[in-house]
């Protein structure tokens, strides 16, 4: 029982201050949207399912399904801080896999981690800690979203973004691709959650992922299956070493500013990096167009 304040009775209804009778006071129903692109073309992006406002007690939330990935993001804030005065809001991201999900690259990066010696990621104190991979995703998302939020408008407050990964791709993907694909969609989902929370942002951050094949061409929005078809014969030679994978996030309406970049994999040169960035930019624009129409639909 909260003893620090006189509580109202249970089942309280919050008055809609200043609401006029002409406006329908019904609670906003969650909106859903499905991207309309067809998956026939190789360079098209995969269909995704998006829904906002699913979490009641968060200021904003979004849910995204793409392929077998299921991501859910909730945004809390602006909330008051404690301690000394800050003139801009603080921003944090926490990303967690549900405990039964195997994390991509688990065996490589989460070794030697005291939290992972047992099956659950709980340490001796019973406090849950993040694994190295969860930290990596968190910091990519934080870096990508930080430039977009207008923190100056929220003194003395904090924004906290919580990402939950409910499901991931099947093991046919190699772990790097799985991880980066996931990161890509988490950024897109978190951006929508921020908009849903009415947090003031300079622009919506969207992100894209590309993969290069051996001939130096790039595939936008790679899906493991496509790669498998191509490399059926030469599956023995380690194809994953050769391919360059890149995730990049942009503020498309703000001079196409690059807010996040993560390139992984084989050999690179400037031409390839240029191609990777441009490919990611193309994909981010397609996703942005989808998100825009989804958001506009949600308001009407």
């Amino acid at each position: 029982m909260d003893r620090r304040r006189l509580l109202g009775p249970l089942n309280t209804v919050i008055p809609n201050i200043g609401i006029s009778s002409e406006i329908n006071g019904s609670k906003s129903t969650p909106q859903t949207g499905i991207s309309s692109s067809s998956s026939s073309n190789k360079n098209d992006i995969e269909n995704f399912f998006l829904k906002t406002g699913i979490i009641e007690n968060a200021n904003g939330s979004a849910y995204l399904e793409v392929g077998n990935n299921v991501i859910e993001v909730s945004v809390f804030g602006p909330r008051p801080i404690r301690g000394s005065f800050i003139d801009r809001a603080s921003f944090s991201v926490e990303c967690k896999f549900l405990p039964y999900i195997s994390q991509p690259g688990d065996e490589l990066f989460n070794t030697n981690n005291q939290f992972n010696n047992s099956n659950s990621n709980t340490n001796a104190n019973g406090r849950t800690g993040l694994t190295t991979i969860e930290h990596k995703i968190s910091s990519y998302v934080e870096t990508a979203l930080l430039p977009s939020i207008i923190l100056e408008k929220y003194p003395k407050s904090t924004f906290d973004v919580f990402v939950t990964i409910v499901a991931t791709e099947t093991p046919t993907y190699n772990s790097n691709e799985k991880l980066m694909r996931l990161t890509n969609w988490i950024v897109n989902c978190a951006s929508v959650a921020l908009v849903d929370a009415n947090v003031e942002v300079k622009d919506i951050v969207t992100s894209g992922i590309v993969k290069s094949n051996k001939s130096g061409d790039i595939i936008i929005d790679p899906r493991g299956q496509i790669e498998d078809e191509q490399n059926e014969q030469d599956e023995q030679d380690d194809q994953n070493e050769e391919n360059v994978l890149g995730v990049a996030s942009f503020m498309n309406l703000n001079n196409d500013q690059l807010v996040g970049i993560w390139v992984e994999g084989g050999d690179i040169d400037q031409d390839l990096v240029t191609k990777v960035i441009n490919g990611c930019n193309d994909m981010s624009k397609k996703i942005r167009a989808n998100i825009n129409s989804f958001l506009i639909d949600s308001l009407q």
Partner: protein
Amino acid sequence: MILSPAERAYLYESLVQKPAIRPGARSDHQFRPLEAKTGFLPNSNGSARIRLNDGSECIISVKSKVVVTRGESSLIEVDIDVPGFRDDSNFVSNLKFSLTNLLITKFPVEYLRLTSKYSFKLFIDCIVISHSSYPLSLISLTSYLALKTTRLPLLTSEVNDEEIEEQPTFSDDWDNAKYIHPTFQPPIFITLGVIGENLLFDPSIEEEQVLENGLILSFYKDKVITPIINMNLATNSNNSNFKGLNQKLIIQSINLCNKYCPAIIKALDTLIEQDDENDDTDNHIF
């Protein structure tokens, strides 16, 4: 350390000039002076320490263990300890992820193969005794020195043990120990600060406070390799300048690294040579 608004504005204005006016009169591709020492930990296969003039210090020890190759997911394991940060903090975890990722994907594991069944597994333990700026490049330069001077005992048993049940045996004489590979150059990380149109190598903590973005590139075998990532280098700061970057700067940063990083590698190699020469006279670091 947090700069006052006036200091911050002054520093920002000097750094966006073309060319940038950096504190300490550094040119934009110049690293901070460093002092290094290698091979001082008697119980390790390889060790190195780098000290910077601002008091930053990092010690790395490399130890090896003979393992059955099949049973290991990777032959390199990295652990990083930074005083003042929890081991499960985002800061330490990211350093660990970056270094592990770089070494696992780029380290030529065939150098660690002993026999068809057995390999060396390397344990790389880093202690960042003190740091002011983002310590990733400090750690990676130290790991370069440590790996470069790592000596593994000489195998005396048969290389081909597919048919025989035999554990590898090694030469007793430590003088026979070999370096991982004579031409081996471990990959390193380079941190670059982005401010205006300028790219600054190895930003100091003051510079980090006003940077518009930060880039981390990796460098191996005389060229820039993956991973390439961007991040906010300033920790514990309310950096109001932080923003997205121009795509052209990424390309520019790759060119700059290709141009200047061979000099860094060369300088590190020279350090090792000098250290070898001094070895007989002075074997203590403190």
